């Protein structure tokens, strides 16, 4: 029998927020994986600080609601201490691409066996609308009223360059597709990364733009680094261009924890 997966406390995300979608898709993913034999008591939800982070409170699963930008290293410590645990790290774009970027890069470099799902609304939600590392150039946020003068980071490109072994992009407007990505990520042995595009209804409503431009990638050779990189560069996170979603790269290699144990 599956356990109640909701803590049943009041949810304070804005009505219609895409975080509800991510939460629902994740629950469905776990339900399906549970049928395949996943033990929910081994799942550890982690989150950073931001609107996204509230998911730790809402899920009736073991969790570690970490500091802003600092969920990933906690997950790495957990995995090192107990390799049977399955850390799933929900982070924000400000959180993982700004405050704690070094941890994201190094977790990918090590191929530590954790899952990182980024709620990428391309804005700082909880702190009420400042520009984020993936905000488009000229983005008018509360700290950049004249428009941001920085180019956005491309996290897919960054993760490929950082040697991540599973790299995908999802979109909250494509819930079934996102669920499939989450399942693949959880099946992948090694560092799994999904950049989940989500609109922020309060501070960056990108629904129209995504609606017009997001498309599902056709099946391709996901073991080919060069073609993955070419695909990653198709969209630069600015305001324009077509946005492929799906798996960019999936490679099998030994995980950090496995290698550390091999040196015994």
């Amino acid at each position, binding site marked *: 029998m599956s356990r109640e997966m909701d803590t049943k406390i009041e949810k304070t995300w804005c009505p219609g927020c895409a975080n509800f979608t991510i939460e629902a898709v994740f629950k469905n993913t776990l339900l399906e994986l549970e049928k395949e034999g996943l033990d929910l*008591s081994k799942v550890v939800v982690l989150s950073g600080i931001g609107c996204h982070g*509230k998911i730790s409170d809402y899920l009736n699963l073991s969790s*570690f609601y970490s500091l802003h930008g600092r969920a990933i290293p906690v997950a*790495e410590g957990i995995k*090192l201490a107990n390799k049977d645990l399955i850390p799933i790290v929900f982070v924000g774009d400000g959180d993982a691409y700004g405050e704690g970027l070094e941890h994201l890069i190094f977790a990918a470099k090590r191929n530590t066996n954790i899952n990182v799902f980024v709620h990428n609304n391309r804005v700082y939600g909880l702190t009420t609308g400042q520009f984020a590392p993936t905000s488009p150039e000229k983005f008018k946020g509360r700290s950049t009223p004249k428009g941001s003068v920085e180019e956005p980071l491309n996290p897919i490109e960054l993760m490929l360059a950082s040697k991540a072994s599973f790299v995908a992009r999802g979109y909250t407007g494509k819930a079934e597709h996102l669920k499939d990505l989450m399942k693949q990520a959880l099946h992948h042995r090694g560092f799994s990364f999904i950049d989940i595009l989500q609109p922020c209804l309060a501070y960056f409503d990108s629904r129209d733009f995504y609606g017009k431009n997001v498309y599902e990638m056709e099946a391709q050779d996901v073991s080919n680094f060069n073609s993955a990189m070419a695909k990653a560069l198709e969209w630069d996170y600015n305001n324009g261009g077509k946005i492929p979603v799906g798996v960019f790269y999936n490679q099998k290699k030994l995980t950090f924890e496995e290698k550390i144990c091999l040196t015994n």
Partner: protein
Amino acid sequence: MKDFSFLIGGKAGDGIKQAGHFLAQLFNELGYNIFIYEDYQSLITGGHNFSIVRASDKRILSHKQKVDFAIVFNKDTLEKNQENFKKETIIIYDSDVIQSNDLPKKYKAVAFPMSNVLKESNLPLIVRNAVSLGILAGILKIDFELVKKIIENSVHKKIEENIKVAEIGYKEGLEHKNGFEIEKLKNEPRKILTGNEAIALGAVRAGMKFYFAYPMTPASGILHFLAANEDKFGVKAIHPENEIAVALMAEGAATAGKRAMVGTSGGGFALMVEALSLAGQAEIPIVFVLSQRPGPATGIPTYTSQADLLFSLFAGHGEFLKIVVAPGDVDEAMFLTAMAMNLSWKYQTPAIILSDKHLSESVFSAYYDENKIKIEQPKLWSGKGDYKRYSDEKDGISSLAFLGDKNAIVKATSYEHNEFGITTENSEEAKKMAEKRLRKKITLLKELKGEKTINVLGNKKSKNVLIVWGSTKGAAVEAAENLGIKVIQPMFIEPFPADEIKKELKGAKKIIDIETNATGQMAYILKANGIEVDEKILKYDGRPFIIEKLEEKIKKIIK
């Protein structure tokens, strides 16, 4: 009294440290107590380095300024270490790099062409340390077999060749006119350890499974020692991307049930402070080693200081229980580290071990029996009912379950939370939780009543009292013994053993605070606890106190 001091001086790359260790092992084998002070710069080659090795028939925790023997590899040593020489000092020098007229006439000298002997044997200059070990053993009429044994134990390449050149030196030493036979004591050799090694051993004995650290002098010795002995100790030593990751990985490991420690110096500790506060809020056990060096900022990396006392005490935003201990020698480093680990787990709160370069990297003879250390279990969850990670208990201590435990939903969090670990902003709940966390201190104070949290040393009847903490203990205790005065050394900084100190200060005439910082940080803590010191002796040049000079300063105050 049998008490000998040796200085070895040269430039970085000359193998000064190894030479010091040779001598320490030699005298350890002869039953002497050992102390080594290493003075080196933050560079890989060049500069000026020296070690002072002291061997004594009594327990010692400090070096002396004036040495009986000096092994001199370069001219710089003659100039820069002048104040370490007295007229009886026997100076053994490499006559291939130093001319006899470089040497002030007042010294007794043993000239030996060390460089040439090595050149003829096709050995690198670093082997001068083996040659000089031989010379010294010859002068002191020590059995050459012992020299051989030490070289065999510590040299890994060209062992035979090392022994051969040591023997050439030995023969030269035997001939020396000022030679005498050194007495072999009845004591068995002891373990000789650096403060860093002692901290590592204490942690291992107290159940540490992970040590996370980013390299930073003077704490790196812990990382190197544990990494080299991972399998022997059953631990993993891990070097992540920075100190922020270090502290958070350790907290992740602890939440999954494994004991972890982290180590660094001031700059790295500054980066860990947010995680320290997280451990306070989320009630995560974690031990931080803060090995101090002079600051601010990068400061003077390879020298010593006690200027982070208040930083460690006040580190971390918000209010929560923190345990801070300050060992003064390797024995205390071992048992206080173990105690900090056990208390951190029992009280689910961070602990800090305050060390400094002078404790971390000096070498001491160890007396403490590691087997006395026990792993003390925290209050574990019974497995019955719904698990509340932060259940509100009378003693402030909630029972522990770990991530992955069957039937327990374990919710750790950086936000203020209810008993289940779910975020709250409710005023009553906030107050309740703050009080629950702070109640742990009351429980801890009760437990500590039965423990030794201060040392009282020297002449316990004296009305002149020195107050010292950490590595300053070494020089101060010996100075106090020589002067017949009393020493109080708090080993706990938080909770601060104010009552215990006050009891010992009853009737004191003069209270002198001694620290290696410029502002008297311990005096500040004492004052906050209602204890006024009369005088402060402060040193903030990166060098530790040295017995003779400290004695003079104290004398002036108590005359």
